[in-house]
């Protein structure tokens, strides 16, 4: 998978944004990971932690937020994808959960909107 190169790209951005804001150090980096990407949050975390060892972000806490898609129906119904992660008693919390979801209002298959992001949401710095 491509977690390492994505982590490098995230870190390049974090370093340049921190430097241009005259940061002395970085307390935390918050990254949003879309549930419909193939990015594995655990692997991304591992790579980011490895990359904050010898730069301005050394020691920064990495916070990953999962971003759920919105499930939308032609009939106008829409709700956050996290409401649709159970199948009977089973919790399905990966890509499969959002592929075939019938609308609770009209029964038609809904469309997943969003959840394809990998966003550097914020950086908490010391100036």
């Amino acid at each position, binding site marked *: *998978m491509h977690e390492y190169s*994505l982590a490098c790209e995230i870190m390049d951005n974090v370093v340049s*944004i921190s430097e241009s804001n005259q940061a002395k150090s970085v307390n935390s980096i918050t990254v949003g990971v879309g549930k419909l990407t*193939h990015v594995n949050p655990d692997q991304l975390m591992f790579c980011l932690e490895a990359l904050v060892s010898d730069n301005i972000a050394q020691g920064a806490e990495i916070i990953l937020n999962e971003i759920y898609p919105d499930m939308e129906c032609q009939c106008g119904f829409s709700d956050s994808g996290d409401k649709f992660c159970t199948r009977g008693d089973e919790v399905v919390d990966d890509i499969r959960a959002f592929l075939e979801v019938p609308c609770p209002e009209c029964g038609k298959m809904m469309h997943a909107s969003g959840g394809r992001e990998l*966003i550097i949401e*914020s950086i908490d710095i010391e100036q």
Partner: protein
Amino acid sequence: MLMHVINVGHDVLKANDKLAKKNKEKLDKNGVLAINFMGAIGSGKTTLIERTITELGKKYRIAVIAGDVIADMDAGRIAKLGVTTIPVNTGRECHLDAKLVEKALKSLDLKNIDILLMENVGNLICPADYQLGEHLRVVVVSVTEGDDIVLKHPVIFKSTDIAIIHKKDLAEAVFASTEKMEADVRHLNSEIPVLKTSIHDAESMNQWFSTISSFADERKKD
């Protein structure tokens, strides 16, 4: 010391999509139809590309971007057919991305190309997340991968424009049902053409060639 939270909002994956859009604009400007071939290792992408060049090369000016992790064996095979072939080594990456394609496009004389075939790295997972600037996404899946392969990789089949169930002549030998594979694709993506092909079945290959021709002719008219 002052603590300060910077709201960034930079989407790393969207940055690729923006670049892909630029690539597409460049291709559009030159009237090139670009096709992104995705599929597992050994699914038959390179052979399908070779046959496509042999058949459609009579009518269209074709060029190829051949992606591989390392080495340029595929590019070598394709270049033997006399078409311009740009090998792209992705290094540690498991997919082509818009940046690699942008660079490759610079080496191509786009004005004199009708169809650009882009062979992605053999993998059904990562290429799904990356737009390259293509007009058509084609997933090649062979029966030898097992007939549950489609449902195991729903994202790539959801995002494709054409699905090819390849090596259909081997289905019986590997206990695979092409009917199941086709039904699985249609279940995920009901609108797209699903072709069952084998290089040993000329009629099935002709179906593929005419599908691509019709897309290429449509673009010529634009």
